[in-house]
């Protein structure tokens, strides 16, 4: 594998004990003092290794226990039980579930992809990204053995406008102006954080990680600090209306974002005059009119559009659609009009797992942007207390940027490897070809038609 696709990871330990799904409840009263206590037989030695975290006053037993139930079943006096951890149930919300947060923590800590045995234990399907499956290849199509780098799978994408054809002058020289492009090795950029405690150190960590991963972090002009200048090549500068950015800074940037407004094309032209090689993205909240707006702007000459759904992947509307469904529609309509290949679409909002990256690309994005998972990599529990000005339970404002960089790098490396798993199974050798490949995915609403016919009867049912 070429070095640009290889990310070196090292385990980066948690600062706080993990919030785990269950806890061990062991009583002393009634203990028979057996010669050989079942606790000594623990296969994982969790009772021998247990200790108390002095900061949080939490027993390591709960996070080390692997739920094998042997002590529960073997204690003669039945003094050991397991119980649901109420804290676990209360973290996150309906979208950012405890399961997702735990999986992200694991990836940020280890840099590994989550692997488990004994089949899948989750729901059959669900809303949003859980209503689709990706394809695989066997016999009638080749796969691509991308894992462990045995076969080469490219995950890099170019951000910028693309020409459909070159024009040549009378003397054979190229006369069309070739628009600038920036390449990222993983189809993912880091977006603005929807909530966070004072974020100077956090942003520093994000920028370091983006720089190491050769991708970008979107930074709002008002959050910029001269101390970030070292990472300016990996910054997508989000310009504020009326802000005055020094020409020297613009010169160093490779990419900026401007919010979508009526005169956005004029703004773009003004920036191009300052620096023609600057890639300019139009940032647009996802809504039912995004499609027609993008069509209009594409004809007017934009390069990149960055569509942003909310934290739960929903657009701004009375009856909002989920980002994947709206994006399908936008993508297909641009394809119909012969416009799709001219621009780059970055889409984000609700990207919580590696599979969401692959699925959103299948639904028509060239690349995705993610936000909350970057905080979760730093142990965020998505309690959103910071949004109310209450102190962060995991002291995110105090993170060491080097530690944050390690955690985020681990997470994104894990996501990259998982993208390879999905693409390898499909037999896809380039993420650029994955874009819009809806025929290589299966959607709940299509597959379920098989069953909907089974309902229309008037008879008694029994299990």
């Amino acid at each position, binding site marked *: 594998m070429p070095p640009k696709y290889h990310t070196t990871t090292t385990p980066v330990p948690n600062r706080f004990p993990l919030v785990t799904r*269950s806890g061990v409840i062991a009583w002393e009263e009634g203990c028979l003092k057996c010669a050989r206590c079942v606790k000594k037989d623990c*296969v994982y030695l969790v009772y021998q290794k247990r200790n108390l975290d002095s900061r949080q006053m939490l027993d390591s037993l709960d996070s080390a226990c*692997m*739920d*094998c*139930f*042997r002590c*529960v*079943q*073997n204690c*003669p006096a039945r003094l050991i*039980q397991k*119980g*649901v951890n109420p804290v676990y149930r209360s973290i996150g919300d309906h979208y950012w579930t405890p399961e997702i947060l735990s999986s992200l923590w694991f990836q940020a800590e280890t840099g590994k992809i*989550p*692997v*488990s*045995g*004994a*089949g*899948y*234990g*989750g*729901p*059959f399907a*669900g809303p949003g990204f859980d209503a689709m*499956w*990706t*394809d*695989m*290849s*066997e*016999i*009638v*199509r*080749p*796969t691509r053995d991308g*894992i462990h780098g*045995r076969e080469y799978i490219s995950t890099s994408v170019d951000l910028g406008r693309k020409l459909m054809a070159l024009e040549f002058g009378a003397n054979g020289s190229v006369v069309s102006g070739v628009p600038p492009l920036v390449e990222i090795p993983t189809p993912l950029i880091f977006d603005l954080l929807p909530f966070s405690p004072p974020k100077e150190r956090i942003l520093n960590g994000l920028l370091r990680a983006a720089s190491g991963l050769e991708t970008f972090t979107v930074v709002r002009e008002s959050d910029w600090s001269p101390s970030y200048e070292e990472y300016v090549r990996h910054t997508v500068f989000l310009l504020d209306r009326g802000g005055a950015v020094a020409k020297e800074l613009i010169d160093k940037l490779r990419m900026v974002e401007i919010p979508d407004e009526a005169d956005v094309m004029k703004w773009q032209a003004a920036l191009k005059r300052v620096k023609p090689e600057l890639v300019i993205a139009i940032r647009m909240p996802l809504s039912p009119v995004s499609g027609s707006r993008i069509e209009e702007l594409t004809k007017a000459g934009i390069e990149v559009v960055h569509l942003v759904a909310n934290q739960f992947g929903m657009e701004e509307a009375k009856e909002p659609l989920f980002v994947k469904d709206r994006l399908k529609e936008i993508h297909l309509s641009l394809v119909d009009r012969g416009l799709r290949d001219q621009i780059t679409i970055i889409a984000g909002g609700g990207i919580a*797992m590696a*599979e969401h990256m692959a699925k959103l690309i299948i639904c028509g994005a060239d690349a995705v942007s993610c936000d909350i998972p970057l905080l979760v990599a730093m142990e965020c529990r998505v309690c959103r207390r910071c949004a109310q000005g209450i102190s962060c339970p995991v002291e995110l404002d105090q993170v060491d940027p080097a530690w944050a960089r390690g955690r985020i790098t681990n997470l994104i490396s894990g996501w990259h490897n998982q993208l390879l*798993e999905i693409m*390898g*199974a499909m*037999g896809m050798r380039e993420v650029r070809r994955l874009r819009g490949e809806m*025929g290589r*995915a*299966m959607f709940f609403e299509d*597959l379920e038609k098989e*069953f*909907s016919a*089974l*309902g*229309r*009867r008037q*008879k*008694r*049912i*029994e*299990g």
Partner: protein
Amino acid sequence: MRGRRKFLFPEAKPASSRFRYALNKYRVKIDNGCTNCGICVEVCPYRVYAKGSKKPRTPSEHLCVGPGCEKNAFFCVRRCPVNAITVQLNPSFEILGDKRWTGDLLASTWYMAETGKVPYQNLNYKTGDSGGGFDKLRLLYAADGNGKKPKGSPKDISLAIILNRSGDKRPKVMIPVPFYLGGMSFGSVSINAMLSRVRAAAALGTFCSTGEGGYPDELMPYDDHVITQVATGLFGVREDTIQRVRIVEFKYAQGAKPGLGGHLLGDKVTPAVAKMREAVTGSALFSPFPFHSVYSVEDHKKHVDWIKAINSNALVSVKVSTPTDVDMVAVGSYFAGAHIIHLDGSYGGTGAAPDIAKKNIAMPVEYAVPKVHKFLEGEGIRKGITVIASGGVRNAYDAAKIIALGADGVCLGTTDLVALECIRCHHCESGRGCARGIATTDDELTNLMNLEWGTQRIVNMYLAWSEQLRTILRRLGMKSITELTGRTDALVHIDYMKGIEIKSELD
């Protein structure tokens, strides 16, 4: 079933938990006010209680029917003269299981494996909590609708299926139950777990696949009931292993990780495993994906022909996963000369796999089976091939449902592990391997289980399944499981029914 004599089902024999206490849904507690009068020991017909020196003991809590027992005259809580007994939900039970395999499904499978009987303890042993597929499908019994009463005794109902329907000169190979046991390699599970499954398959007159880890010598007495697997790693595949069996299975893909090769962690590659697989001790084994010798149906035919040439009596099964064009894969396999097309849906599997693959790649088998069945029927070739479904079949009801959707039979793996007291903690790969001594190669852990116990547990469970399948068929007015194939009119999906038509989940 090679002989001419009629097949006799084995007997169920008690095989209680290997651990001190079986896990149970309810907790029965006797407080210190107990006078040890012994009434509870006497009245409880489920034998939850046993006599004790100071107060009765509750060695068999898992046989308790819970607070729902209140309606019975023998309800111990009421019968206790000093009100010393409480019966309540077991808090640990909440931790057990997941959406697909709920605590109830686990506990009911353990009970079936212990006794060979259908559970009675207010456990939902028919559906899980996944919110779709099997868990939303219900069998629709015609008995009420058209006035037909179930006829005959359940014993007259046949569960047998024929595995070779091609009409070629090879043996037909009939199995008396509509299922066989899927591949779990030596190395991924212990030799005791593997042998228990093979011996149970032999006792039930059916088959068990070796998985891709080779053919241990210990399996040789059961050659007639072994399916040997040829997978991409070709571990332990030799001419003599192909020649000694009646069915050879090509594993093109597996539901646990569709599109990805097998992976055995270095820790599990003990000297014995390494020898079997002709590999190096302690070094992780990655099976390639796919078969790099097969990129088309024509290449696939070459594979099938190769097996047929080496063993002139063997049937060839083709195990595939469920991509968008699974119907094309199935039809290709038919024309390549396969006897069995085995569809392994994405939610099943036992081996360690990336979570992203288990959840997202390939479609659930509930969608794939009707798609393949209809397509093969449309091509006029459905009668010439056996369709086996796997990947998320957890109980007899799931089996009946997938057969009604178009399969001839099912293949099982996880259920066997649960019968062996797998708790589905999903940590098969941690440390020394499975803490419950199933998916491990650690000597001490392997010895947590003995062969007779393991065999009996699996036999018991499938005897209970068989009883349930016969009951289902009888209520559907059918005499043979073969009548059920493709009968989608025997199914409803409760999401598409009106509320009033939906009866409770349990009878």
